[in-house]
């Protein structure tokens, strides 16, 4: 009988396998794990942005009930600092300033939240009580709380080894060619903007459990990480000097990361190191207040851009100067965000022939800043897509026509930009047209008029963007300063009866990999989804991996799995050839069936796996038993998703409140494996983009206190802040990976902020507004509408 199974392969909107676990409260997050004999850590943090530590007295704390140990920077003095994974070089070729990032403060604190001491106690409350009994004698110093403050002559120095608080002064592009292009320009449009600082706020706060086994000398770290192997490498090799074979890192279910859980954090090293001192497992879980002051923040750029145009509105050149805030220390990947993930994207979807960008990275007495959903690409996209609108207005050209005029033509791929990247594929006209259609761009003026009749200001905004995902190849990123490779690892283990376990070096923290990656196997090997298990997040199970960020899991991790499946199929063909007494060249494979070409002789994958594990009738002289293959895949290039986002807003002029009325996204994410998951990823990204554009802002006062340090003052997007987000895809395939996929994790957060601000500025066009900084809060907008006041347009 022929059973027609529901199609579960590539292109099917299969429901997420992991959701039953998550939605019924049965996920296993780090804080859900309790180890026998577990103790609890409290981390005492600096209340000052900048201070000298004169002394720390822990005597009273050590005598408190339940306390096992108290450690300070002095106790950890022999330990390495938290390493930085990317080295940028200055314009003159010298390396960036890379001051030590101590695990626990050594003599000085450099931001509010900087860890100063750790208490280990039987209970969390006891640890916290004892933490309050630690007496730290601080000598508060003036702080460099903002980049402005940090760059002033005579500014407080965050680090001795970084004069002028400069981490690096980097550039890219051909300055002479740019000057020549500007000399020919018919018009130069300049624009300045700030990319607001964001607090990631994953739903699950960070947590870590360190466990040392005195018998074996083995360490285990359970941690909320997006990349457990990277943590094993960084912490083992650079901080604690523990060989890989003695250190297991487990990143179980993780409740969102958005980049903030890529980095190696002090708390991971503290609990691992201290567990060997107290010979008991130690758990630490952040409170939300701690997350605000210890999770790496995102964005925080101040930029100036100049666009040279000819008389027809063709772009001749782009010049950009950017200041990027690094915070008090270099977080793991911080230096690459405002350089190779940012300035290389400044061509966007346009044929700009010359680009020159300078970036200065600045130390300040604030929480370290690193990659946050999109990382560098949202900053580039925002700058460019706002600039496109400003320029179109200044030369009196329609903003859509201006973009179309400068688009990279469909037949120009592969397209080499002036800032290093080579785009493999794309069709920006197609995504633009589809989005204009879906958003009813043509009908907008009628909607504006209808809103006006109700006393509301309606605006529409567009962004045509591009991003780069799956950062690679390893050799290239190495030459640009990366201290790691950026390949991925996949193991396909076909069991005797044909079910499959996949080991992947990527990590799922909400993205749905357990479903999407399984669909790849279902599609290719013809195994039912229910019989495929995806294993990730444990260095003891998965051979190796670089983790999940930069929308790389499918493009890089999925491709590694594809290569491993190639090997499974090749071996399977040899076994099948033996069993069917045919030559290997004559055996074909399609979705689970091996067939002797042109005959009805077939063997199923299960026949082959059984033969491989029970090798009674088996070519044992030529082929090893078993059916398990591993592949390491190093991509040839980035992938380049792109598309068009259109936002429609309505402003209440009496209060300044912006309401999102509609949002349309048409994205080219390459081949779509699971359309429902893609839609969810885009919607989530757009929610974060709307958050950045209208709501979120991490604000420090002049003393370096984080004023928006809790949800009472930091505006996270809520459902009613958002619009219905309509998501469509238009595919051009990636030409260099075997799946043709590009990535969809970040597009929403990259394309949307400029679309929203462009819509807000459009709504306010009668008020002579050229620009409004993010977040466009009601108070800011009211200042503009209220007119006359000097805060207008800030």
């Amino acid at each position, binding site marked *: 009988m022929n059973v027609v199974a529901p199609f579960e392969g590539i292109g099917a909107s299969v429901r997420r396998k992991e959701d039953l676990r998550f939605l019924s409260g049965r996920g296993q997050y780090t804080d859900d794990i309790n180890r026998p004999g577990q103790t609890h850590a409290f981390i005492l943090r600096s209340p000052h942005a900048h201070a000298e530590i004169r002394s720390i007295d822990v005597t009273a704390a050590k005598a408190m009930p339940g306390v096992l140990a108290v450690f300070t920077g002095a106790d950890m003095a022999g330990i390495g600092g938290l390493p930085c994974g990317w080295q940028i070089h200055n314009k003159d070729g010298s390396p960036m300033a890379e001051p030590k990032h101590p695990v626990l403060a050594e003599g000085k604190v450099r931001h509010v939240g900087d860890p100063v001491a750790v208490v280990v106690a039987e209970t969390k409350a006891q640890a916290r009580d004892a933490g309050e009994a630690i007496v730290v004698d601080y000598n508060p110093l003036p702080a460099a709380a903002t980049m402005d403050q940090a760059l002033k002559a005579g500014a407080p120095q965050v680090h001795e080894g970084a004069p002028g608080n400069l981490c690096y002064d980097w550039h890219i592009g051909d300055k002479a060619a740019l000057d020549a292009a500007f000399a020919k320009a018919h018009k130069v449009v300049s624009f300045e903007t700030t990319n607001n600082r964001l607090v990631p706020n994953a739903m699950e706060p960070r947590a870590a459990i360190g466990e040392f086994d005195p018998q074996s000398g083995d360490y285990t770290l359970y941690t909320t990480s997006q990349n457990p192997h990277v943590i094993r490498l960084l912490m083992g090799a650079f901080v604690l000097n523990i060989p890989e074979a003695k250190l297991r890192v487990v990143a179980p279910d993780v409740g969102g990361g958005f980049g903030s859980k890529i980095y190696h954090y002090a708390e991971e090293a503290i609990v691992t190191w201290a567990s060997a001192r107290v010979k008991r497992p130690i758990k630490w879980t952040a409170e939300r207040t701690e997350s605000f002051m210890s999770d790496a923040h995102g964005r925080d750029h101040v930029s100036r851009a100049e666009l040279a145009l000819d008389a027809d509105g063709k772009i001749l050149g782009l010049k950009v100067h950017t200041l990027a805030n690094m915070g008090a220390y270099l977080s793991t990947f911080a230096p690459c965000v405002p350089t190779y993930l940012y300035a290389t994207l400044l061509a966007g979807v346009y044929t700009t022939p010359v680009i020159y960008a300078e970036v200065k990275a600045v130390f300040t007495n604030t929480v370290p800043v690193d990659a946050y959903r999109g990382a560098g690409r949202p900053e580039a996209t925002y700058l460019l897509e706002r600039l496109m609108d400003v320029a179109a207005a200044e030369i009196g050209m329609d903003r859509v026509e201006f973009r179309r005029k400068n688009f990279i033509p469909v037949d120009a791929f592969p397209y080499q930009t002036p800032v290093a990247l080579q785009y493999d594929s794309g069709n920006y006209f197609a995504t633009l047209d589809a989005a204009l259609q879906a958003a009813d761009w043509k009908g907008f003026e009628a909607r504006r008029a209808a809103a006006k009749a109700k006393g509301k200001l309606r605006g529409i905004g567009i962004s045509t963007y591009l991003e780069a995902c799956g950062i690679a190849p390893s050799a290239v990123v190495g030459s640009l300063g990366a201290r790691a490779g950026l390949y991925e690892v996949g193991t396909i283990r076909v069991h005797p009866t044909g079910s499959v376990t996949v080991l992947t070096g990527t990590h799922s923290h909400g993205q749905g990999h357990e479903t999407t990656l399984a669909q790849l196997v279902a599609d290719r090997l013809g195994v039912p989804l229910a019989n495929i298990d995806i294993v990730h997040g444990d260095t003891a199970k998965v051979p190796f991996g670089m983790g999940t960020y930069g929308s790389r899991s499918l493009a890089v991790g999925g491709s590694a799995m594809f290569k491993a499946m190639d090997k499974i199929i090749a071996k399977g063909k040899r076994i099948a050839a033996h069993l069917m007494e045919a030559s290997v060249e004559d055996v074909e494979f399609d979705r689970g069936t091996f067939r002797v070409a042109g005959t009805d002789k077939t063997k199923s994958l299960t026949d082959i796996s059984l033969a491989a594990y029970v090798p009674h009738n088996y070519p044992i002289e030529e082929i090893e038993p078993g059916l398990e293959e591993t592949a390491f895949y190093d991509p040839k290039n980035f992938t380049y998703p792109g598309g068009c986002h259109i936002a429609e807003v309505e402003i209440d002029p*009496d209060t300044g409140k912006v309401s999102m009325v509609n949002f349309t996204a048409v994205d080219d994410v390459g081949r779509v494996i699971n359309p429902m998951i893609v839609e969810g990823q885009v919607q989530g990204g757009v929610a974060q983009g709307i958050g950045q554009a209208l709501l979120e802002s991490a604000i420090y006062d002049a003393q370096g206190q984080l004023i928006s340090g809790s949800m009472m003052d930091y505006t996270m997007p809520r459902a009613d802040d958002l619009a219905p987000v309509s998501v469509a895809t238009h595919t051009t395939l990636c030409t260099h990976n075997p799946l043709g996929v590009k990535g969809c994790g970040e597009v929403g957060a990259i394309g949307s902020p400029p679309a929203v601000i462009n819509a807000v500025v459009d709504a306010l066009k009668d008020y002579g507004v050229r620009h409004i900084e993010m977040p466009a*809060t009601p108070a800011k907008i009211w200042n503009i509408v209220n007119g006359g006041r000097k805060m207008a347009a800030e």
Partner: protein
Amino acid sequence: MYDFAYHKPSSVADAVKLLAADPDARAISGGMTLLPALKLRLNKPTAVVDLSGIAELRGVKREGGTIVVGALTKHYEVATSAEIKAAIPALAWMASTIGDTQVRNRGTMGGSVANNDPSADYPAALLALGATIQTDKRKIGADDFFQGMFATALDTGEIVTAIHIPVPEKAGYAKMKNPASRYSMAGVFVARGPAGVRVGVNGAGANGAFRATAMEAALAANWSPDAVASIKMDPAMMNGDIHGSAEYRAHLVTVMAKRAVANAG
């Protein structure tokens, strides 16, 4: 949270006794304000006296021209009470806009009134409606009860037992929420009734909830949104922060006053 003793009395008399015996003890009703403060270790009471077991503090009833709301009445109960919806729909609607579902199902009118958070909703309504706050030992008019940010006429250990609200002819409320906390950033409650025409303002004032007397006079002369449209608040009396300047809040009070009158009909 620091350690504290926990008591759950079943009468007002017992609760008062417990609170009188220990000046560092604190009453708790819904806990929606006190519990977060305890968790953040901002408060260190020696004992917590849980009022939730006191039956006499519960219930909403109409007594002639007055609605009597027991101190333990939850925001959800105010929002859905048939008596309140019939007599003062603006108050029921106000309650439905407080916090979120969880907060509305725990937070109480007594707790909110006793706390007098400058951004809380109820104080503006009770000022405008000319309510009387009943405690275990006396009755205090709203004008005397609310004394600025987090300050009330309550003595240490004194418990709010009920709120008496004269039924108005008309009442309306409008507010602009703080984008982050969603507490009121500027809320205006207008009422016309036995206590006259009164306007209560929350969220915006530099010193907590207050009455906007110029608006009251204007509305007494002409009950219409236009009557308040040109009345400007003095920014010097307003609160400014990262979410909006004092000027912005002053402006919002006027906008919300217009809307409140329109909502009152």
